[in-house]
């Protein structure tokens, strides 16, 4: 069987192609229990995983590919103040978790409370451009929500008054 079936379903057509290499599922993420032997395994019961030679995924160290100057359509509508939240509905198996790089894991962990892209960048010590790309990739992988459509400009009287009211309450 292929790695697609092993992971409980192939990505939708074209979706795997959009995910950068470091976010695609790997056959031997750390901590995976081998299916078919122990009943306490985290992965669904089924045949043994494919041998490394049979897998279409790259083995060995995964390249961290963040091209300087890459500003695709997916990051251009992300602003400094754009809120990012963790998707609690995402698959949380340990094997899937470790396929994320340390920076991506840190971002997912940080977004338990809604934070801005700027805060992610500042607190993790990542450049803003890199942060936008990572956030965009995590969004494509279904790990976080990126709330780009929340505020409509030009602003309404209502929202300006709410901010003024909130400021006046400060003593």
């Amino acid at each position: 069987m292929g790695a697609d079936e092993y992971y409980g379903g192939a990505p939708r057509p074209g979706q795997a192609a959009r995910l950068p290499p470091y976010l695609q599922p790997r056959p031997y993420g750390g901590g995976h229990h081998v299916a078919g032997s122990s009943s306490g395994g985290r992965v669904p019961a089924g045949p043994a995983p494919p041998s490394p030679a049979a897998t279409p995924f790259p083995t060995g160290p995964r390249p961290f590919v963040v091209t300087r100057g890459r500003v695709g359509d997916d990051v251009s509508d992300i602003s400094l103040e754009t809120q990012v939240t963790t998707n609690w509905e995402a698959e949380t198996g340990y094997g899937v978790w470790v396929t994320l790089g340390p920076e991506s894991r840190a971002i997912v962990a940080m977004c338990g409370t809604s934070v801005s892209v700027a805060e992610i960048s500042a607190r993790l010590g990542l450049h803003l451009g890199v942060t936008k790309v990572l956030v965009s990739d995590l969004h494509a992988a279904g790990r976080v929500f990126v709330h780009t459509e929340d505020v409509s400009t030009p602003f309404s009287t209502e929202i300006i008054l709410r901010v003024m009211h909130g400021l006046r309450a400060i003593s």
Partner: protein
Amino acid sequence: MDFARYPDQRAAVRNPKPPVPVKILIAGGFGVGKTTTVGAISDFEPLTTEAEMTEAGIGIDDPGARSEKHTTTVAMDFGCLTIDETLKLYLFGTPGQARFSFIWDDLARGALGAVVVVDSGRLDDCYPAVDYFEHAKLPFIVAVNAFDGRLAHDLAEVRWALAVNEQVPVVRFDARDRISVRDTLIVLLQQALERVGARQ
């Protein structure tokens, strides 16, 4: 995704709608007190985010020469004030230099307005910011940071020197004082309100 394990109602509870972010820019030259302004009112100590910009160097017109690219890092200090659980106000300090238009456009897009902080002893420094906001038609005010309670020029002179439109408020404030900063932001928001009113 395992839909059997996560029924829809749990999804709504586990993924609540986040607060809406709005932002105000704190602009002005180097060392005028932008970060102090942000820090006076922010919930947390100002954080710094860095953006990397690539600038193409000279030699583009010469087909023989290799154009040199330089990367510069631009730092922006910012803070956040939580108005309530549905609304957060971000304050972003702009980079002092005007040449990074890429960053300025990113900052200005979707902003409520800007406060141009001025050190009355160094008025020149804020010209680029004033020009930018007039051009971008973003509501803004000029706020003279009074160090030690004194001003080098009085406000009328500042207005004349900066040649701002007479509708633009020129106020005095103390960047270190929370209430003073609050009042300055309220003046800006009144400008924004008038702008909305004029449109309707």
